[in-house]
């Protein structure tokens, strides 16, 4: 199947969203879910084509003299495409409950931008070359900007400025020159197994600079010191934070890094040239520093945001280590973290809708009022920490194993230390909710159920089940990752 089809459902649904508008909410959201299911089907058929070894390519448009826009599917992209399209459906279900329960304004604009962003995510997932990836990357930035500033008001506009400033600034300031550099040195921007830079005559030092330009240019991956946009973007409605800032936007970032390391540099080139030596400590620092900052945050969404920054740098670490095992682990972690983190965000939003609470310190005893939500939160947290029986354990295992190949235990210890920190900042939340007494209750009174709307609960149930199923049946995913051509 032509990967161009993946752009069709998210774009085709836009006229319907506009047509139905605020007046016919059910039709509006129904059409999005139908589009999402179509998209999932299309991605699934691409998946079977790739498994069967059938080449999946689109035509091309010559954007520049020698470089064109083109889509094609390879295993890494299929993983990302499947993930994003599945979570789009789930998030739409969730936002039906959330946006209405929370009485958000401008919901039509919200859904339109959301759809555009998702089309761009598909473009990034199936990008055949760096140029296409860059185009999709920028479209995502621009189309999500209105989502960040959704609430209006001065705070949201400031956050929007930080968001746009950092993401556009780094991508134009670092990523674009890096791409032009590759074009000049290698004469091609295509993604080729084994990379295109091995014989491009770039010296060791220059290679490190180029890699750094890519790493810092892709600020969506949240590497410090260009991570500020992520907490800033948390002013957005929770479904936005959930899909875009735990899944689509940040994952486009790390996905781009993985793809560039594998198909533009080639993992051998990265290790041979030692280009990553200088950057590994930056990623490791981000892992630890973000975990520690997460510790200090009382606002639940902010804590989750810093947790995301830390988790993203696991993947960056995996990419920079550039062994087959670590990069595979990185790809797997995109999926595992997405399921875990979206569950946590959904729960945070559910608490906000049902109880209007956003500070962790005020969440004592809410587990008795929202047992389902907090139970799901617990499972999601376990997955982020990386413990069985949740999917997060597989990817963490692979990344840790891959990092041992580097010959030092330094990076493994960073990962383990961060795991301990994860436990320390995530688990107290469900514990507090279930074990501490509820201050709002008078002695002797029992808490009544106050769960979020059903739509929210369904979405939470789906992703939580996903976390567990990914532990039990990781096969299809690992098989797909096994098809990546490394050299």
């Amino acid at each position, binding site marked *: 199947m032509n990967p161009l089809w993946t752009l069709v459902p998210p774009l085709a649904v836009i006229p319907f969203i506009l047509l139905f508008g605020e007046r016919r909410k059910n039709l509006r959201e129904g059409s999005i879910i139908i589009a999402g299911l179509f998209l999932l089907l299309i991605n699934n058929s691409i998946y079977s084509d790739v498994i069967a070894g059938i080449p999946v390519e689109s035509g091309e448009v010559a*954007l*520049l*003299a020698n470089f064109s826009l083109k889509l094609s599917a390879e295993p890494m992209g299929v993983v990302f495409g499947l993930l994003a399209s599945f979570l789009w459906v789930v998030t739409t279900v969730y936002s039906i409950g959330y946006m209405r329960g929370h009485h958000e304004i401008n919901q039509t604009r919200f859904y339109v931008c959301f759809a555009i962003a998702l089309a761009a995510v598909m473009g990034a997932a199936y990008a055949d070359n760096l140029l296409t990836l*860059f185009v999709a990357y920028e*479209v995502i930035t621009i189309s999500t900007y*209105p989502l960040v500033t959704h609430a209006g008001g001065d705070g949201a*506009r400031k956050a929007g400025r930080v968001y746009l400033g950092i993401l556009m600034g780094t991508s*134009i300031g670092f990523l*674009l020159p890096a791409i*032009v550099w590759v074009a000049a040195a290698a004469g091609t921007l295509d993604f080729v197994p084994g990379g295109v830079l091995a014989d491009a005559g770039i010296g060791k030092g220059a290679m490190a600079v180029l890699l750094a330009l890519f790493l810092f240019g892709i600020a969506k991956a949240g590497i410090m010191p260009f991570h500020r946009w992520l907490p800033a973007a948390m002013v957005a409605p929770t479904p936005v934070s959930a899909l875009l800032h735990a899944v689509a936007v940040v994952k486009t970032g790390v996905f781009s890094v993985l793809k560039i390391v594998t198909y533009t540099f080639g993992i051998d080139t990265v290790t041979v040239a030692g280009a990553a030596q200088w950057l590994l400590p930056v990623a490791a620092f981000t892992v630890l520093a973000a975990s520690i900052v997460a510790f200090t945050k009382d606002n639940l969404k902010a804590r989750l945001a810093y947790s995301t920054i830390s988790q993203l740098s696991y993947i960056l670490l995996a990419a920079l280590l550039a062994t087959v095992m670590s990069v595979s682990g990185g790809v797997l972690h995109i999926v595992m973290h997405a399921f875990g983190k979206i569950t946590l965000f959904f729960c945070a939003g559910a608490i906000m809708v049902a109880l209007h609470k956003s500070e962790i310190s005020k969440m004592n005893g809410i587990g008795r009022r929202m047992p389902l939500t907090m139970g799901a939160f617990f499972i999601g947290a376990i997955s982020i920490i990386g413990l069985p029986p949740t999917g997060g354990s597989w990817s963490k295992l692979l990344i840790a194993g891959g990092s041992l190949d580097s010959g030092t235990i330094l990076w493994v210890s960073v990962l383990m230390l961060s795991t301990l920190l994860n436990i320390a900042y995530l688990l107290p939340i469900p514990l507090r909710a279930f074990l501490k007494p509820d201050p709002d209750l008078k002695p002797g009174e029992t808490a009544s159920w106050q769960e979020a709307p059903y739509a929210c609960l369904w979405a939470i149930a789906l992703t939580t089940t996903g976390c567990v199923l990914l532990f039990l049946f990781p096969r299809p995913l690992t098989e797909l990752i096994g098809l990546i051509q490394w050299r």
Partner: protein
Amino acid sequence: MIDQFPALQIMVTLVAAPICVMIRNPRWSWVCAMVANTFAFLVSLVLLDKVLDDGVIRYAVGGWAAPSGIEYYIDAMNAAVLVLVSGISAVVLLYAYRSVAKSVPAEKHYLFYTAWMMCVTGLLGIVITGDAFNVFVFLEISSLSMYTLISFGQDRRALTASFRYLVLGSVGASFILIGIGFLYAATGTLNMSDLAVRIPESESQRAVLVAFSFLTMGVLIKSAVFPLHAWLPNAYTHAPVAVTAFLAGTATKVSLYVLLRFFFSVFGKDYSFGQHLLNGVLLPAAVAGFVLMSLVAIFQNDLRRMLAYSSVAQVGYIVAGFSLATQSGLTAGIVHVVNHGMVKACLFMAVGCILYRVGHVHTPSLDNLLKRMPFTCVAFIISGLGLIGVPLTVGFVSKFTLIQASLEKGWWAIAALVLLSSLMAIVYVGRVIEIMVFRRSRETGPESSGMSEAPLSMLIPLYVLVGVSLYFGINGSATLEVAGQAATYLLGGLQ
């Protein structure tokens, strides 16, 4: 018939001008201008097609063969500029009808369209001719009519703006004339191809050098290259906005064409950039231009003035591309001439729509404009992104090519500064968009509620041009190919 097309290119609009005067009726003189301009556009398309297929066209005006007669000379370079000038003029003229009807007294309309036709004729003439003195003649035709057009502006500041431009423009034109005079004295010919052959052989190299300096200064003034841009912001701000859209898309671009023609075709790359180190003058001016003027644009509160400073900055990119003096650098410069011409015309047309409904374009008071004028705002945003150089817009195509060209030559600093000024563009465009889209309006009077979009006759031309620019943003290789051919011709000299 097709052999006579080069003459037709000039004649149609030239003849339309006196007819407009004779008609006097506002509507019919507009129709006359519109028909002539559309015809000129079609002619230019035919010429471009022919040039791309068959190579250079030479046309002896009045049957007098060059070098004694005047010759029209068309290669890929000027064919593309002809299409740009006549195309943008046609679209903006279509748009101008309503806009002018509101801002210019009805009894002066026929004069307005007459001046417009003269201006287009002049610009097309400059581009098409292969005769150095003829360039000056057409330059004067276009400049004088341009001063007239600017003075049609709504308030009296238009008159001072026009006068200021007249003074500086005349200085520039005189410099060009002096330069051409010296060339004639040194070589005894005015035909460009002939000049190219005779300049190296001339015995009075000093006269050639003087000619070169005068021409350089003259052309730089006319194309508003920093720091000789002083006339531009006022002229752009106070002229009728349709005129501004037209000028921004064409006038400075034509002067840049003259720059290319003289430096590369007449004097030759080696003379201009080798012996006389033109890039010692051009490159610093260009770089300072795009960095400083982008910075200045950030602080402008009048939308037109902001766009005017951004225009000076964009001219900087173009000249930077030229001064690389390589195949890819020239390609980048030329493609940006076309791309920026389209984008800036779109932006000023959108500004015109806002002006038409809101009555002012004071940026901080445009809050929540998206609600009132959604179509205009979307067009403005799309073109604004083009100004920044976001992918899928034409701006990206030219910026990518420019950065690539400067890296190819090893000029890292230039690439970095181009990126820096792009970041500034994010700030000055982003600021406007933020106000238009996200700031709630403070007043909730009857004015601010409900939609009041500009008339269709203004929106359609605007969207036509936005559509074209998006098309070339996605299929950028189309313009790049023409620009590449043009660059090859320029570097190869006149055949």
